[in-house]
């Protein structure tokens, strides 16, 4: 392969000319789009155009020179594109803040058939403003991080192209003013996820992981589609604003069979796929096959939260279908606990984080399910900060360990990777919910509302707290095994701190993990500290309040807060003891509960169940269908008919025996008969 590889390095003149031409064309396209916005509408349209087209431009620029190995150039362009988007996001968010409402624009009509009129229309309201800030902000940081991370890769240009494409699609998802444009982004991010997970496609397992992600997502997407149809046939529109308005007009429906409930359930299927909830979460841990920054961006901070975002986006609709919300809450809570429990036993640093993500997403859905959409968005944001931080941190570790991901072969990295360790520590504190770190505020709001909301239940709260304890335990375990204690690093590996392009994002994210939660200080505390709940104000008007939410006693809230924090604290202390002080204990416990341990360690055999009981039988059945229905039944039937015809033919062909005089006789007889008929 050496020669072919060499061959590929050199760009042929055709490629070069093509790349340059397309670069010019694309630049013209970008400028044209911006110009269009400036000329036709206003600065808003132009901002939207730049926001969307900058990553697309980055994608095309890098994509057309995908053979390039120049990580610096590719990365810079990509990062700049993301940063341009970020600036636009800020501008738009400010506009939204100033307007106290949505800012919209429409580029063109996409599909106009019958009653269906879908425009390529985009809107920023308070929900999406937050979302684009997170996505472009974190996205920019991760792009920056990637420059260093991918510097030794074979195809950095392709990588950045995919990353920019992802950003573009994510923005479509967020900004689309109707379900279909959201669906475009929805599938688009899935596609990018597929491409990025399978980025190192030469490894069969990584390619398989990408495929698995895509197909699992597809199942969810199918549900999403059905949801779109249902909504369209209820409301005659796919526009978010109109749907929400009409849902509000109709009011809540009871029972399970109502069209809105059905629509919500269909949409929730979509959300479980995209946001890795039970039963479609299986792809996310496998998705760790992709480059680590990708895991940070897509599989922690942004894409996987799309389901939550979608539900929040449609919160009036979901509120009109309380039964659907119950399903969301239960699925969320159960996922939170299940995933956390699996996280306890994983040895792969990224897998731990992956299950952690699933678990945290469960919290967000729990929040949605109890009607606390603001809390869900809040946790979404803080989670984006600290989980991105931790993934990038793990990326830094993996980079330092030359690609090693098994935490059993780490330990004591604190010294070698001080910045990484420091920032990771902040993330750890955030995720286990230590006040005043970001995670504390958001998670606590969820737990409180799950208890307190009329849509909630104490059982949900209990699950949430249990999950929090598990979270604290496995995160501490991760910290302990990776950074603390004695070194188990194999010989020949010399961990070293990453370059600034990687550490700077870490630091920024670390800071955000600390302060990110302060915009949503709960009333119970904030009242005392005179700190307002910024976020709640921000969402006023965009997110409906929980219907029938009674004022609660501050004492109860603080008490519950104390319970959860202390349980988490205890849990992490226990983990510290287990994995730093008395390292023999985990083995003993595992031996004691062998069966349970195996169950958890093997992720409850869900993958095995899916493959063994659904996919393999389906493939086998397809083989049989082919062999028996197609080949044996239909073709045999055809042959039988053919044989019949041939039989008739073989009888009839005795007439045509090649004896021309007999033919002539037939002719004569025929002519005679004709004459007879004429004369008759």
């Amino acid at each position: 392969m050496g020669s072919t590889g060499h061959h590929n390095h050199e760009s042929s003149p055709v490629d070069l000319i093509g790349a340059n031409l397309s670069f010019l064309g694309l630049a013209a396209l970008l400028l044209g789009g911006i110009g269009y916005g400036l000329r036709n509408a206003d600065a808003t349209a132009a901002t939207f155009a730049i926001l969307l087209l900058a990553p697309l431009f980055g994608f095309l620029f890098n994509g057309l020179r995908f053979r390039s190995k120049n990580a610096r150039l590719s990365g810079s362009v990509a990062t700049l594109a993301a940063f341009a988007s970020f600036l636009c996001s800020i501008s738009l968010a400010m506009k939204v803040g100033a307007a106290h409402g949505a800012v919209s624009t429409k580029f063109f009509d996409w599909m106009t058939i019958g009653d269906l009129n879908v425009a390529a229309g985009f809107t920023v309201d308070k929900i999406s403003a937050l979302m684009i800030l997170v996505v472009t902000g974190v996205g920019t940081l991760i792009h920056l991080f990637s420059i260093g991370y991918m510097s030794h890769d074979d195809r950095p240009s392709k990588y950045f192209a995919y990353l920019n494409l992802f950003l573009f699609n994510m923005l479509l998802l967020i900004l689309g003013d109707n379900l279909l444009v959201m669906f475009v982004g929805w599938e688009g991010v899935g596609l990018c996820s597929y491409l990025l997970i399978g980025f190192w496609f030469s490894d069969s397992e990584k390619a398989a992981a990408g495929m698995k992600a895509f197909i699992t997502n597809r199942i969810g997407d199918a549900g999403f589609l059905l949801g779109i149809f249902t909504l369209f046939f209820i409301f005659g529109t796919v526009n978010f604003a109109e749907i929400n308005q009409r849902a509000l007009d109709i009011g809540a429906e009871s029972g399970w069979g109502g069209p809105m409930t059905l629509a919500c359930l269909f949409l929730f299927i979509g959300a479980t796929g995209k946001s890795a909830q039970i039963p479609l979460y299986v792809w996310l841990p496998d998705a760790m096959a992709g480059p680590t920054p990708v895991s940070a961006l897509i599989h922690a901070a942004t894409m996987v939260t799309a389901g939550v975002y979608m539900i929040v986006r449609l919160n009036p609709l979901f509120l009109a279908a309380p039964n659907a919300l119950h399903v969301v809450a239960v699925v969320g809570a159960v996922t939170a606990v299940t995933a956390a429990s699996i996280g306890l036993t994983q040895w792969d640093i990224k897998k731990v984080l992956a299950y952690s993500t699933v678990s945290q997403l469960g919290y967000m859905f729990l929040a949605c399910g109890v009607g606390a959409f603001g809390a869900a968005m809040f946790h979404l944001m803080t989670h984006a900060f600290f989980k991105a931080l931790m993934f990038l941190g793990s990326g830094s570790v993996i980079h330092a360990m030359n690609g090693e991901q098994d935490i059993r072969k780490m330990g004591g990295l604190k010294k070698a990777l001080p910045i990484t360790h420091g920032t990771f520590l902040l993330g750890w504190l955030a995720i286990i919910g230590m006040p005043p770190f970001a995670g504390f505020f958001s998670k606590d709001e969820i737990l409180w509302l799950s208890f307190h909301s009329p849509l909630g239940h104490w059982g949900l709260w209990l699950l949430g707290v249990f999950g929090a304890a598990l979270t604290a335990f496995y995160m501490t375990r991760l910290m302990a095994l990776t950074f603390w204690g004695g070194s188990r690093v194999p010989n020949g590996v010399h961990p070293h701190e990453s370059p600034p392009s990687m550490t700077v994002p870490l630091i920024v994210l670390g800071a955000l993990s600390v302060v990110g939660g302060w915009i949503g200080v709960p009333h119970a505390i904030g009242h005392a500290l005179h700190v307002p709940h910024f976020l709640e104000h921000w969402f006023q008007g965009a997110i409906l309040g929980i219907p029938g939410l009674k004022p609660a006693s501050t004492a109860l809230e603080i008490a519950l807060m104390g319970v959860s924090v202390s349980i988490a604290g205890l849990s992490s202390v226990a983990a510290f003891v287990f994995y730093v002080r008395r390292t023999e204990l985990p083995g003993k416990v595992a031996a004691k509960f062998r069966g349970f341990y195996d169950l958890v360690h093997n992720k409850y055999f869900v993958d095995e169940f899916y493959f063994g009981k659904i996919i393999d039988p389906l493939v086998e059945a397809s083989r049989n269908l082919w062999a028996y229905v197609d080949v044996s039944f239909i073709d045999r039937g055809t042959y039988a008919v053919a044989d019949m015809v041939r039989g008739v033919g073989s009888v009839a062909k005795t007439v045509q025996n090649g004896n021309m005089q007999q033919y002539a006789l037939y002719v004569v007889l025929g002519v005679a008969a004709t004459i007879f008929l004429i004369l008759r």
Partner: protein
Amino acid sequence: MLLSAITFFPLLFALLVACIPGSRARVIRAVSLASSLIVFGLSLVLLAKFDRATAALQFVERLPWVPELGVSYFLGVDGISLWLVILTTFLTPVISLGSWGSIAAKVKGFHVSLLVLETAMLGSFLAMDAILFYVFFELSLVPMYFMIGIWGGARRIYATVKFFIYTMLGSLMMLLAIIYLMYAHHDTVGVFSASVLDFYKLKIPFVAGSFINPQTLLFFAFALAFAIKVPMFPLHTWLPDAHVEAPTPGSVVLAGVMLKMGTYGFMRFVLPLFPEAASYWAWLFIFLGLIGIVYGALVAMVQPDIKKLVAYSSVSHMGYIIVGLFAMNVYGATGGLYQMLNHGVSTGALFLLVGMIYERTHSREIVKYGGLAKALPVLAILFLIVTMSSIAVPLTNGFVGEFLILMGTFQVSKAYGVVAVTGVILGAAYMLWMVKRVFFGPAGELVENTGHPLRDLSPREIVVMAPLVVLIFWMGLFPNHFLDYSKVSIEHLIETRDNYQLTVNPSEATDVARTTPRSEAGK
């Protein structure tokens, strides 16, 4: 004259090509390509002059052919056939150029066949006289027969015979039905006519629940012909064989255009001619279409041969179109029409790419592949794009069509919708699995041991693929550019389905009156 020009120019050029000595392969290819481009240019003129505000037939040409039987040379175009015509003229140059690599022997015969085939296909999309339609419909079999039979693979004779007999059987039924309709016209109006427009005016007796009544029988006679051509589920087995044995250009033209003749027939004949029967039996066709979607996808998943996989994916995709058409609402019908174009573009592109792979490694067995993306990155990218179109990822053309079809289906029944949606999942499954096994993973047996370095796409091959890729995105991004032309026609078809009438564009009516066959017959 425009339609006649579009229809018969390829035939004329075929004659021209036939006059070039067979040894001058380059000249033949160049002339063939140029001529198909000229025809494409003409069809663009048609597009530019097309009046999208009316559902009436446009550019009508009508000359008596057999005046005694009311058979006329009757061409016309409306929003339903317009895009199929353009699809045909668009794909032909692509195929022509694409064939440079795969057709090395008997170049002249191939290009003559291709051009004759183009005439036949265009004729069947443009013919508004049932007999004329039948003639073109059948004529299209002949060049295809040669294409598979001469330039095909090892079992080509088996495949051609199967293909030919299957299709022939169905169309014979259709011929009988056409003759019946001509007589029916004679019985009610007093003169023979084979004009489809006149057929629309007939009221054919229908009895619900019974099989033996004229409309139901005629309905099934037509439906059988088109169902085989499409092909619909239990009648599909000729397709994989034909595709596997056909040379690449043959596959492209077969999947790209010829299958559309079946679905077009449903739209032009079956639905409007037999409204009651079509409504009554719609469940059956939706049912079979759904089975086709799922069954085609499942069987595609386990195919060991790339081309066969794509062929079965065609079965699945065509199932969508059938379901969409028989949903009988504006979404389903629009989606169905759009999906015809999509399938032409995407599956055509897929077959071309498979052909390009085959030209390099001379095998289509999936298990022998792997890691092809590393050896042939450009091809892999194109293949991935086309795959995305085939599995209907948004912003590609496939999404628009499939979305509309699913929506139409969902409107008919939620259950239908749910079943149809599974096709979306399975479609992704088999295509991506195939992509994974062929392009990803470690280098496979064939990729490693070809004995010569695999060459990535040549400029010619990129030129072949470029228009298809552009179209994939264009159709996905701006479906309105295309649907605007068909909208009025489809809405007319759906809304007045119980009493569908097609008129001739009034501005051209004077011409028609002058050459109407009846006045000829009266002499």
